[in-house]
């Protein structure tokens, strides 16, 4: 039996250094006559993922497009959606028309966010919002 497709129709690459402090950039290129759609998305997965839906976050290929050209397109992922603790990840392009992952990037490192402590602090409930008893102590 011969495989129908020998090379991935989509090639993906994570650009630059990734961390949760700034938006991240993804470059991808598609083969000629690739059936792209507005429902296509690029997912960020931890290495070792088992299912297409096990993404950490994703970016719509059309909504989150930064630039496009004949050879290469670029998409961004919001800084808020990038895991604060970092780790080893990879990118996968999900094609809606083919209903499969049409491209997988090389694994890459996401560094822990420098503003990790600041973001955690912003997500904590302020003192005045914490429930307190009549003596003013937190319950």
């Amino acid at each position, binding site marked *: 039996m011969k495989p129908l497709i020998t090379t991935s129709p989509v090639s993906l690459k994570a650009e630059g250094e990734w961390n949760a402090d700034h938006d991240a950039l993804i470059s991808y290129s598609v083969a000629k006559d690739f059936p792209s759609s*507005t429902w296509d998305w690029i997912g960020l997965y931890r290495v070792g993922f088992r299912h297409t839906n096990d993404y950490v976050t994703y970016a719509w290929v059309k*909504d989150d497009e930064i*630039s*496009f050209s004949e050879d290469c397109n670029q998409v961004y992922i919001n800084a808020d959606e990038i895991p604060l603790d970092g780790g080893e990840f990879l990118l996968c392009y999900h094609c809606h028309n083919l209903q499969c992952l049409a491209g997988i990037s090389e694994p890459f490192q996401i560094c822990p966010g420098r503003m990790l402590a600041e973001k955690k602090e912003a997500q904590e409930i302020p003192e005045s919002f914490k429930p307190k008893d009549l003596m003013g102590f937190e319950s």
Partner: protein
Amino acid sequence: MEEGDNKSSNQLAVETANLEEHFQGWGEVILAADRILRWEKTWFPPAIMGVVSLLFLIIYYLDPSVLSGVSSFVICLCLADYLVPMLAPKIFGSKIWTTEQQQRFHEICSNLVKTRRRVIGWWKRLFVLKEEKPKMYFMSTISILAVVAWIGQQVHNLFLTYLIVSFLLLLPGLNKRGIITKYVGMGKREISKLLKQKEKKNE
């Protein structure tokens, strides 16, 4: 990417710059509203609820017709559009913005552009769904609209509007506190589990 190649320019940066130029006269007002909506001080959320409640009580008392209400609202928008750029420098002073203020204004405009792209994206995806799966599109839209119509029938018109407006105004603060992210994350995980179970059953 070569300079002058319009296709490969940073579209997001261009759209953000255009929006910043458009809102130049509203800069101080936008920054002030941003501080309030993001709950910079602990009394901002009750203040927001107080103002919204007072406004809706006034509307309830006046009981205007739909046409009068909509016209009055548009009059207020037109007046604001004319007066704010003129009066803002006199009220806030013509001080040069700090780097922090400029950065925050840039972030706000960038977020607005991203939100607009998201809305347009979902609109386009809906039409693609209509072409690819017309039955599913028809059933989903009819079901959702029927549920919305039922809710509209159960809850008083003005009260429903009050709840929606209150929620929308509290949303930025809730988002900053991570509350929205937490529950949306839970919802996404549940949907993901259901989809996996459905796939297993199909297999």
